[in-house]
Each structure stands twice: as C-alpha cells, then as structure tokens.
C-alpha cells in the first residue's frame, strides 16, 4: 500500500512538473527575446543567455526607426481597423437575414459561409493572385481588404447568426409596429444587442488581419504597402545581422497582440469556445 502511495505521489509530482515545464516553455522564448533585445550585439554574441546588466533600449528605438518599419506597422494597423469595421457590418447583415427570414437561397448562403470554416484558405493563394493579376488589382492600398474580409467572415457570420437567433423576434415585431425600417432595426436595435458577440468579432478579425502572412506576401510587392508580417520577415536580410535589434523588431511586431491578449484574454478564449461549440 505504501509503495503504491509513493508511486502515486511520484506520478502526481511528475505530471505537475511536466505541465509547469510546458507552461514555462510558452513564455520563456518571449522573455529570452526581451532580455536579448536589451543587449548590444556584442554582449549578445558573447553570451546569449546572460541577464542584461545595463538595459540597452536603443535597439527598440532603432527597430522602430529602421527604414519602412513604422510604415508597415501602420499599414497593418489600418488594414486591421478596416477589417474590423467591415467584418462587423457584414457579419451583422448576413447573420441577421440568415437567422430571421426564410428567403430563397438562404440555405445556400448559409452553407457558403460555413464552408469557409473547412476550406483551407491557403489553397486559394495562387488562384486569388492570378485573379487579382488578371483584374489589375495587385499592389493597391486596398488590395488586401477583400481577402482579409472574406477570411474573417465565416467565423463572424456563424457567431452573429447564432447569437441573433437568441434575440426574441417580438422585438422586431414591436419595432416594425412603431414604424421602424429594416435599416433602423438593424442599426438601432439588433446591433446594440449584439455587443458581447461584437467584442469577440472585433478582437478576432483584428488579429486575423494583423497576423496574416501569405496573402500579403503574394498580393503586395510595393515596399510602401507591405504589412508588418512581411516587414519582420525581410528585416534580417535588409539590415546587417544584428540579433538584438532583430528581436526588438519581432517584439514590437507582436506588441499590439500582446496588449490585446493581456486585456481581453477572457473574451478571446470564450469567443473561441463559443465559435467552435456552436459550429
């Protein structure tokens, strides 16, 4: 009996240790990058693991000021913002009509959006490129807006559709009785009621746009239109190899996501669970 107990105790200890180790591995690389980014290149090359003694913030300043970096950062921020606005509007409209009315092709429209959850969007990379090329849509400031919107829509539409179902139809009826138009009903009544779901959509669609890589790689060639993902990928080849500077750039590029996560981690996790469970 005692042997069994010690064995059990050991097992519990090992499991806890493994979980702690894995958790540590999830943040350690980031901490390592922060520490390294605060060193000079020489310091880093001498010992890549030592703690920084005199934090050298110049790397962050240099990274932000390096050619084109800030521009790409802003490009991504603007794209993310536009994507958020358009996704919220489109998802609201599509979710509302699909959940409320039985119009023709309703099922087709719904399936169209749901299918987006299982189509590997990456297999559309070359086709979208060829189409944009044929239509002369490459390398514009608005080039990436449509693809990003299309990729954010399936999840957003499903989420809103499910949510609007839970809003009583009586509300619509009352609104119509009072002489509300469809547009007013949508903007003044349904939209404010969707705010919990809207928060989730805002966060996810911003992160989608910010983190996206392959389509901005393929559809954008103009240096001044590049997104942040492309900028950090090119960073090392465009600047003399200076690892602390490079890590500072990487850290700056994830800063918005980091801030969003620290503030909204609960909503993000909840939204994801709801999305998958309902899907």
């Amino acid at each position, binding site marked *: 009996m005692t042997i069994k107990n010690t064995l059990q105790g050991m097992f519990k200890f090992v499991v806890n240790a493994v979980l702690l180790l894995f958790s540590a591995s999830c943040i350690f690389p980031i901490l390592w990058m922060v520490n390294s980014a605060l060193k000079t290149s020489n310091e880093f090359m001498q010992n890549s693991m030592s703690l920084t003694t005199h934090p050298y913030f110049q790397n962050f300043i240099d990274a932000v000021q390096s050619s084109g970096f800030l521009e790409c950062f802003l490009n991504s921020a603007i794209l993310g913002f536009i994507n958020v606005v358009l996704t919220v509007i489109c998802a609201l*409209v599509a979710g509302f009509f699909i959940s409320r009315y039985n119009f023709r092709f309703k099922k087709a429209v*719904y399936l169209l959006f749901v299918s987006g959850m*299982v189509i590997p969007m990456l297999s559309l990379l070359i086709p979208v490129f060829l189409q944009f090329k044929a239509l002369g849509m490459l390398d514009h400031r608005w080039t990436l807006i449509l693809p990003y919107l299309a990729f954010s829509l399936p999840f957003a539409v499903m989420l809103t559709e499910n949510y609007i179902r839970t809003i009583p139809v009586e509300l619509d009826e009352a609104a119509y009785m009072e002489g509300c138009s469809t547009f007013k009903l949508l903007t003044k009544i349904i939209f404010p009621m969707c705010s919990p779901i809207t928060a989730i959509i805002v966060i996810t669609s911003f992160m989608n746009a910010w983190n996206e890589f392959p389509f901005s790689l393929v559809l954008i060639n103009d240096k001044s239109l590049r997104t942040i993902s492309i900028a950090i990928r090119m960073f090392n080849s465009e600047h003399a190899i200076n690892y602390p500077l490079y890590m500072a750039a990487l850290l700056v590029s994830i800063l918005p996501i980091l801030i969003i996560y620290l503030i909204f981690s609960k909503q993000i996790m909840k939204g994801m669970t709801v999305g998958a469970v309902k899907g």
Partner: protein
Amino acid sequence: MRKDRQTQGAYDRICPAGGLASKGRPKYKNPLMPPGRRIFGYLSIPVGVYLFIVVVPTLFAFGYSFFEWSGGPGKKFIGLDNYIQLLHDKTFWLSFKNTMLFTVLMVAGQVGIAFIFTLFFTMKWVKFVELHRRVMYFPSIIAAVVIGLMWQLIYNNDFGILNHFLRASGLDGWIKPWLDDPKIAMLSVAVPVIWQFIGYYLVLLMGAVATIPKDILEVAEIDGATGFKRSLYITIPLIWDILKICLMICFAGSFKAFDHIMVMTGGGPGRATSVLSLYNYDTSFVQMKMGYASAMAVVILVVSMTLTIGIQRLMEGKANDH
C-alpha cells in the same frame, strides 16, 4: 392585414424564425420579411465579397490550368497536359507525402497532447490550472511568422536556447543542425507548430469539460469513479463531440502550415520540408509556371476538400450540424 400579422407572429413563436430548424415543416413566410429585393441588396455585399475571394478565383485557376503560361502575355492551350505532368512530378508527390506526415503529426501532437493535458486538469491534485490555461494559450495568438522566426532563433546553432540547454545539461551529443539536417528537418518544423497550438485545443477541450454538470462528477466520485476511471467513463464520453470538432479544425488547419515552414526553411534543405502549399508557391513565383501552378492549386483544393469532408462524414458530420 394587421390581424394576419398577429396570427403569423404567434406561429413564429411556436416555430421560431430559425428557418433551418424548421426544415420539413410547411413553408411559412415571416410576415415581417422585407421584399426579396431588399434582402438581396443587403446580402449582396457580404456574399459578393465571399464569392469574389473564394469561388471566382477557383474558376480562374481552373481555366488557367489548361494553359502553358509563364505569367506574361503569351498563353498556349495544352489541354490536360498540366494535370498529366502533375501525376509524374516527383516533387509534387514528395510534398504530398510531407503534407500528410505533417497532418498526422499535427493531429496527434496538438489534439493528442491537449487532450491528455485536459484530462490532467480535471484532477484535483494538479496545481495552477487557470494559470496554465492562460499561459499555454498565449502562443496561439501570435503570428505564425513570428513563431517561425522565433524558433529559428531557438534552433540557432551558435546561440539558440535549445542547444544552450543541451550543453548545460551535458547532452552535447544531441546537438544537431536542427533545420539543416534533411533527416530531422520535417520534425524540427513540426515541433513549433505543435507547440504553438496545444493551448488552442486545450482551451476548447477545457471549455467542454466546464459544461459537464458538477453533480455528475460528484455522483461519479461517490460511486467510486475517481482519477482515471472518471476520465474514462465520464469525462471522455461527455467531451467526445468537442474532441471531434477539434480533430476537424486541426485537420483543416494543418494544410495551412505555410507560414511557419516558409520562414523557417523555405521548404529546404533541398526539398525535405516542402509541403503542398509551399511547392505551389514555388512553382508559381520561383519557376513562373502559372498554368502548372493553377492545375496544382485545383488539385490541392479538391484533395483537401475531399479529405476534410470525408473525415467529417466519418465522424458523423458534426461540424455542419445545426
């Protein structure tokens, strides 16, 4: 007119306007429904965008796949030659094999480990559950490009964390050129992707566990089902549906492994880590064979859709249920 609306309103309350749910019942018309023209007007934008990015490009690619074309003005119709060439393309088949291997690694690694962790997190003797959950989820929200670049640094021969730890624990013999050895490169690129998304599936599965009513667990415990017995007979059956959804998401997602591999190895060394999406990119942007790349894109789309739908059917099509 108004009276008619009211009776219809009552009907709506009995059969809520969720139209898909009322399949099979006599067709009714929500009296509040705006005329079709207006619905069409509203929906044309989201549906239009979606068709324009997802459906139309596929048609474009299908059309181009019958031509020999390097992206310039000259196009030559060659019928099915591109598809025939694809069948004999060794690199294509290697990439196909790599993609399959990668998919298996992803499903087993991500969902498998997340599943085991979830079971551990239902045990009372596991500490810091909430902290673990938040921390482990963290990598999955970072851009895949950044994860790839970060792991490139971790794997670095001279100053990478990995080799540093190996050296510190006296395992110098284990030090390898992680991303440059064709034999292990595929595993080396798979590890970061697995590592990144364990937390994602963990949160999904733990969300499912949280929906299990507390009294069921308590009753089970009173009846003597503790530890692994409880996992086997209570927890696993009750989160089975979510587990299937996780497998679906993971399966569809592992075709997307482009970002990580692109930045870590670019498909190399040689073609050791070439996956389908990467090879497709290579044929169009490096070799400039647009017609051939189109044919390949069509094949990839068809294959991945077939596999995804097939697996979904195998698991009783949960993801499309409503």
